[in-house]
């Protein structure tokens, strides 16, 4: 028997009140001096006992009335199986949830899981049926529910540990579906797992397992596990234009052991050759960063690997893969109006040092062919009046394939034409001469987006200041919908506008770079600003250093329509079909390692790593997990998991309170009768 409102049982504390009063009064009863107890002692004990019994009976009746009332309010109901015949047989439906997430590779955990599963299969009764469900980030049934032990053993033999994370909810949802297919009198759910806390997100979860399901668990977690793993690696940037990598590869190493620090050697290898190495110490349950730079890269994609040489039972998280792309010098095509010295400062900016990763080609607009445009990473349109249609259309196409374009609008610009160019992220108005139109000698660039990467040098150096340059004239413009203003003059009008995400790859600068409309080219901030703008435009489509297993990896079509395919680490080829120019398609890797993505003649390499969260073996108490997913009887009723017959049966089981109330009434009548008799006699 259980109770619907068990909190009403607190009312039974009231039963103690009369007893306590009796005891307290008895303890504190006053002493009365009397001449002699001689005659009082002669009173027959039986008379006193009778009276006492009468009073005790009255008190017991009153306590009983209280207790019965409390019980009736607590709404008792019967919980025994309504179908004892069915319960007596061995007709169980068993779902065995087997955790084959990546963390189960810890030590001999997976072997223990299989042993336990075999034991459960062997222990099946004659009428029992079992379904094996393997779960990691998703849940899969290993065959249909069956009573055939051999079939179950065979299915179990095929199970291997995966590289995926853990998600319990999916597993329980599938188990519930399996139960709904099994018409068994008794339902039993057995979970065999290391019960990683990471696999459960309490928020926004419903209870999925029915209240009638008997749950059991086998906890394979190791107490105080020893594990050091690489949480993540930051590769910034993933593209290098120089032989020596000047960016940073930063690895986060976490020591999951909570009681002692660990010292581990850590190395970076490129294409299988160790490039650099160091030794780090990681505090208990702490994280240490290891930074690497300055190693050489060959042309093309390089396969990088960060490795810690830690002797722990979970080896997989001791390696972390990344890919780096070393390209030739960044090819910048500067297209100008053909005027003398128009692009002088710009050319100087990109070629002032042979170490700079830029190859600049300056060509007047009239000499440009659409084919020529496609040969460069970035195209700078330096104050050209307008664009021929074919050039304009070609530029639009090239942006889709990853080309960056910087549009500089100045004294030569036909503002009417540029305003009509819908792909330009800015609407142009008119040329503004500050002295004439604004009544002041110049304006300065005072406001910019501090978080944008093109302004990174100005954030890290105090010597560089954008506002030192004076602007005497500029092309008035405003951002089109979706476009972003990255910098503004002091009067609030935009200076640099970036195109919207949907048509990315274009920046617009609205003043000349020839020292006529401004003195910016003479300022120290000119070089870093235009270097960063071009660098930014060249790699907005660069691939990431690595992807997590299960994450979608974009594959984008090149200049020409071509077939795309992925070669996985095992050498298996997966076709992605024909990709037209600029068309994007995603593929989701299922194994960690280096994948080759081929689009036509181009090949790029991406690194895929298993989820780092699996390295954290912190355990969630299995009881908590089961309590979170299993419905209570009340929830089941509320959710309508009962049919009409169940409801009637359920209602019948709850009628106990009526009996309690009836007994309370009878006890009340008896109490009145006895009390009246005692009173009248007195």
């Amino acid at each position, binding site marked *: 028997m259980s109770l619907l409102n068990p909190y009403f049982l607190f009312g039974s504390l009231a039963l103690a009140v009369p007893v306590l009063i009796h005891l307290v*009064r008895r303890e504190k*009863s*006053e*002493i009365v001096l*009397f001449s002699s107890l001689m*005659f009082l002692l002669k*009173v027959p004990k039986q008379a006193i006992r009778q009276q006492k019994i009468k009073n005790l009976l009255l008190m017991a009746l009153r306590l009983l009335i209280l207790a019965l009332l409390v019980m009736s309010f607590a709404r008792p109901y019967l919980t025994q199986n309504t179908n004892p015949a069915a319960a007596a047989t061995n007709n169980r439906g068993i779902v065995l949830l087997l955790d084959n997430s990546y963390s189960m590779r810890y030590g001999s955990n997976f072997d223990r899981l299989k042993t336990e599963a075999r034991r459960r299969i062997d222990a099946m009764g004659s009428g029992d049926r079992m379904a094996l469900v393997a779960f990691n980030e998703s849940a899969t049934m290993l065959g249909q529910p069956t009573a055939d032990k051999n079939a179950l053993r065979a299915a179990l033999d095929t199970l291997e540990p995966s590289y995926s994370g853990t998600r319990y909810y999916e597993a329980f949802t599938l188990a519930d579906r399996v139960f709904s297919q099994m018409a068994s009198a008794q339902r039993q759910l057995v979970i065999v797992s290391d019960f990683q806390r990471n696999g459960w997100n309490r928020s926004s979860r419903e209870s999925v397992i029915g209240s009638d399901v008997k749950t059991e668990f086998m906890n394979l977690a190791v107490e105080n596990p020893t594990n050091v793993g690489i949480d993540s690696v930051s590769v910034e940037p993933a593209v290098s234009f120089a032989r020596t990598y000047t960016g940073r590869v930063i690895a986060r190493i976490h020591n999951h052991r909570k009681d002692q620090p660990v010292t581990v050697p850590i190395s970076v290898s490129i294409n299988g050759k160790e490039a650099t190495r160091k030794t780090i110490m990681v505090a208990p349950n702490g994280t240490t960063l290891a930074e690497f730079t300055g190693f050489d890269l060959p042309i093309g994609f390089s396969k990088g690997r960060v490795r810690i040489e830690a002797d722990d039972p979970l080896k997989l998280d001791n390696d972390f893969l990344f890919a780096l792309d070393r390209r030739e010098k960044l090819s910048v095509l500067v297209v100008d109006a053909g005027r003398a010295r128009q692009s002088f400062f710009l050319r100087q900016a990109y070629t002032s040092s042979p170490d700079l990763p830029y190859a600049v080609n300056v060509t007047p607009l009239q000499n440009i062919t659409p084919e020529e445009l496609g040969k460069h990473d970035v195209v700078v349109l330096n104050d050209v009046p307008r664009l021929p249609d074919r050039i304009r259309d070609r530029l639009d196409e090239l942006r889709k394939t990853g080309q960056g374009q910087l549009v500089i609008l100045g004294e030569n610009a036909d503002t009417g034409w540029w305003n009509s160019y819908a792909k330009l992220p800015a609407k142009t108005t008119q040329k503004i001469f500050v002295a004439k139109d604004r009544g002041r000698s110049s304006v300065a660039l005072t406001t910019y987006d501090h978080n944008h990467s093109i302004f990174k040098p100005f954030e890290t150096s105090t010597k560089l200041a954008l506002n030192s340059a004076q602007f005497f004239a500029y092309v008035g413009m405003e951002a089109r919908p979706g476009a972003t203003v990255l910098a503004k003059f002091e009067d609030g009008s935009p200076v640099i506008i970036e195109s919207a995400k949907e048509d990315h790859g274009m920046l617009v600068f609205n003043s000349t770079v020839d020292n006529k409309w401004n003195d910016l080219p003479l300022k120290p901030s000119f070089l870093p600003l235009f270097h960063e703008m071009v660098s930014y435009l060249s790699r907005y489509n660069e691939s990431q250093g690595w992807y997590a297993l299960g994450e979608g990896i974009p594959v984008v079509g090149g200049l020409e329509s071509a077939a795309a395919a992925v070669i996985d680490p095992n050498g298996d080829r997966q076709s992605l079909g024909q990709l037209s120019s600029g068309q994007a398609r995603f593929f989701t890797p299922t194994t960690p390692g280096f994948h080759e993505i081929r689009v036509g003649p181009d090949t790029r390499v991406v690194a895929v790593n298993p989820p780092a969260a699996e390295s954290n073996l912190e355990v969630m108490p299995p009881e908590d997990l089961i309590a979170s997913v299993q419905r209570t009887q009340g929830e089941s009723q509320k959710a309508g998991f009962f049919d009409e017959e169940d409801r009637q049966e359920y209602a019948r089981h709850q009628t106990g309170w009526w009996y309690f109330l009836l007994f309370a009434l009878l006890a009340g009548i008896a109490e009145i009768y006895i009390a009246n008799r005692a009173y009248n006699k007195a």
Partner: protein
Amino acid sequence: MKIQNLELIARTVVEGFVNGLHKSPYLGFSVDFAEYRQYMPGDDIRRIDWNVYGRSDRLYLKLYEGETNTRVLILLDVSGSMNYGSGEVKKIDYARIIAACLSYFSYHQRDGVGLLTFDTDVRSHIPASRRSGQLFNILAEIDRIEPAKETAFKKPLRFLAEFLSRRGLIVVISDLYDEPENIMAGLKQLKAKGNDIMVLHIMDNFELTFPFMDAAQFEDMENKRKMHIIPEYLRTQYLAIINDHIARLRKEMSGSRIDYTLMDTTKPVDEALFSYLAAREHSH
């Protein structure tokens, strides 16, 4: 209570009582002739009846009524239970006043007066006498008594039976917290020796009605024994038992021609004196 106060109370009570009588049956009793007695050396020669001597040549003394010298012995119970009092007056105080009044009254009637206090044993004994200072001694003793122990009639009455040489009037003042058999055994022995016995049964009103309401620990004033009592459970039975006790005493004493008077401490002491006078008259 000072002796003087006790004497004053006794005198006030007795004289008020005596004055209230319309006719004293005892006035002049001292001149009534009673008997002759042979002269003994030491007797007052003025009392010799010379007429008898003339006729018979023997010396006889002429004795009068008043000179019969009734001996009055007051037996005062000083057991612990006598210390009980539900109101202002404890039973022992009530008994003290009665004893004092009777002593005073008797002494001034030229009776020999004595006092014996007892509980389980004889506490003090002042033999009956008419010598001067006797009253003072008795009153002093009455004043000094402090009730403490239990009541047991057997030993004190046996003592009295053994040592009481002359018969007289014995006044027992007690709450009679003893078995009627024990009480009667001793009293009958005394009665058999020719003593007149008068029993004044002193009881508190609460002992007779048991009006207690709340449950409490009742402590016996004699033996300090405690008992948790719920009065409503016991009242009826208790009253039946005590009334039976009184009825038995009354019956037994009546059968043995012992005067018995139940005295409630809420009643005036006059009743005691009436009973005494009746008994004294009977004893002459």
